[in-house]
């Protein structure tokens, strides 16, 4: 049988039983759509995190108190207890490093902010004038924290855009006073809205001088020290110099973790990439299930079309022709279902993007190829058994059944 005839015959057979064809294609389509949509979600998450990390500043080296065994970051980086605290003096000492451009100490706590009768729980960040440059924030109104002695800050505050809208809904914020605990801060600036970054929503931050934040939270330790290297090439030297300086200051003990943005990015990239693979694997199971359905439907089809198969044999079709006809039909249906599912999956990803515009839910190419490939492969693989059954059918008994 010629290839074109084989295809035409398979298409005819598929169109001859529309319910069966629709069912089979739907099963394949759901499988492929699941792969495409779920990997779009997973890869979207990866891209989202990568973008967020890129947004927190460039050439960044971050010093965390505590030591993780192997370097890099792990979930412990964020919760580990501190053997020897990071202090403002540590941060000041880092300015000596030649590869370092700027240093911004960071002390963080939550506190109640009140203006007149309005009360709000908010995240208070203690830092210095360098913070805005290191994190590359923009001001909407007023100015950022003034340059002054790190150990003696003035009672001023810079607030995020959302905080401003909530604390001062109907009046200008600049020059107003915000009460935090038993202290009063004068608002000197409002940050331009940036959205979230590194787990903190900067629109909801209240930034005060680091010394006052430490006094309020009754501590002399720092949460992080943000270090900006002179340029991209200086990131590694900066990391080494920072590690060395802190080690000297901490009696020769390496009790801090120094991470670079690149390392963090790479780790998250890997983590979420693995997650996407896992999700794709789960979705692939539905493809395998679809494959089994293909087999089931084709087996039923062979049983239903016994007399047709018998007739074809009587008309001179060899076993291999019959086998090829059924295999081509299974492959065609799988391919059509897979393409339909691909379109469905793209639509699903588009819906996700429409609902969450900040979330870049695009399916990665490898997932699309793997999804389509697996669909075709399982379709053909599970089509083999029914096709073999059809080819082996005894023409006499097949013809007798009518």
């Amino acid at each position, binding site marked *: 049988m010629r290839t074109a005839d084989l295809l035409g015959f398979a298409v005819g057979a598929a*169109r*001859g039983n529309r319910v069966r064809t629709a069912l089979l294609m739907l099963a394949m389509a759901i499988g492929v759509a699941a792969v495409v949509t779920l990997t779009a979600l997973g890869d979207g998450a990866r891209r989202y995190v990568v973008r967020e990390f890129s947004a927190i500043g460039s050439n960044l080296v971050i010093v965390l108190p505590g030591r993780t065994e192997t370097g890099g970051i792990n979930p412990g980086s964020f919760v580990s207890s501190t053997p020897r605290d990071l202090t403002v003096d540590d941060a000041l000492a880092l300015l000596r490093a030649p590869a370092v451009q700027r240093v911004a100490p960071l002390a963080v706590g939550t506190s109640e902010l009140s203006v007149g009768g309005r009360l709000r729980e908010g995240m208070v960040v203690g830092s210095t004038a360098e913070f805005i440059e290191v994190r590359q924030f923009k001001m909407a109104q007023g100015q950022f924290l003034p340059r002054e002695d790190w150990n003696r800050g003035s009672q001023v505050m810079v607030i995020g855009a959302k905080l401003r809208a909530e604390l001062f809904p109907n009046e200008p914020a600049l020059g107003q006073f915000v009460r935090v605990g038993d202290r009063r801060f004068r608002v000197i600036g409002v940050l331009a809205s940036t959205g979230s970054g590194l787990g903190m929503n900067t629109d909801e931050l209240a930034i005060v001088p680091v010394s006052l934040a430490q006094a309020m939270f009754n501590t002399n330790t720092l949460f992080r020290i943000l270090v900006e290297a002179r340029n991209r090439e200086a990131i590694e030297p900066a990391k080494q110099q920072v590690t060395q300086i802190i080690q000297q200051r901490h009696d020769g003990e390496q009790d801090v973790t120094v991470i670079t943005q690149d390392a963090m990015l790479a780790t998250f990239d890997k983590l979420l990439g693995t997650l996407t693979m896992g999700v794709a694997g789960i979705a692939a199971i539905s493809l395998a299930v679809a494959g089994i359905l293909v087999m089931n439907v084709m087996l039923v089809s062979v049983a239903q079309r016994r*007399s047709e198969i018998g007739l074809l044999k009587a*008309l*001179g079709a060899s076993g291999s*022709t019959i086998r090829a006809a059924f295999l081509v039909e299974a492959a065609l249906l799988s391919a059509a279902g897979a393409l339909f599912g691909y379109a469905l999956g793209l639509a699903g990803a588009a819906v996700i993007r429409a609902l969450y515009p900040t979330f870049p839910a695009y399916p990665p190419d490898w997932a699309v190829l793997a999804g389509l490939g697996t669909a075709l492969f399982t379709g053909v693989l599970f089509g083999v058994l029914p096709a073999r059954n059809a080819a082996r059918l005894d023409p*006499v008994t097949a013809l007798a059944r009518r």
Partner: protein
Amino acid sequence: MGTPGASASEAQIELQGIERVFHLGDSVVHALAGIDLRIDAGEYIAVMGPSGSGKSTLLNVLGLLDRPDAGHYLLEGRDVTTLSPDEQARVRSQRIGFVFQSFHLVPRLTAAENIALPMVLAGLPSRERDERVRQALDGFGLTDRAEHRPDQLSGGQRQRVAIARATIMQPAMLLADEPTGNLDRATGDEVVRLLEQLNAGGVTLLVVTHDAALGARARRRLLMEDGAIRHDERQGATGHAHG
């Protein structure tokens, strides 16, 4: 065994001691019990007998749809019982045409496509197919029915399509199993005349039938009973059964 030495000229079909046994539960049914039969090219044979006498099994064996359990089947001097299934399929494709009682047309294909089916399966190029189908439609008076599907055709038209399909590969023999069984008398006669015309053109015609009137038209009649040929008579004169 080699070619039969006994025959003066080579027979088209030579059956030697053909046996076909079915096991139905505990009982053993000898559908064909030692059939010896010789058929020359161009013969017109009616196979008759009661139900269960083995007529259809004989037809299936002759058409290579069924394998005998014992004996030899020589088709045009070649032992076809030992051929592989694919080789048998090729023989069916080239040498044998089937006509069934219930027509066995593919419901989703048009009359023209049904007629073309054996050529499609044999891998003939579509230009040659189209030409032969056009001639067949013309020859069987089906030209205006070419694009109709079987459910849009009358019984007589369906059987004509089936006969056109059976002859499209220009086979050496036509095997018809109750070709008029599902047709009224007038249409049945028309179909029989068609088959006889083909036989007159040189094709060996073997018809299995219950219908005595149809059987009487054949030049040679085989009467089967319990898997054996009881009578083998030619054109009115009674001959002796080979087995």
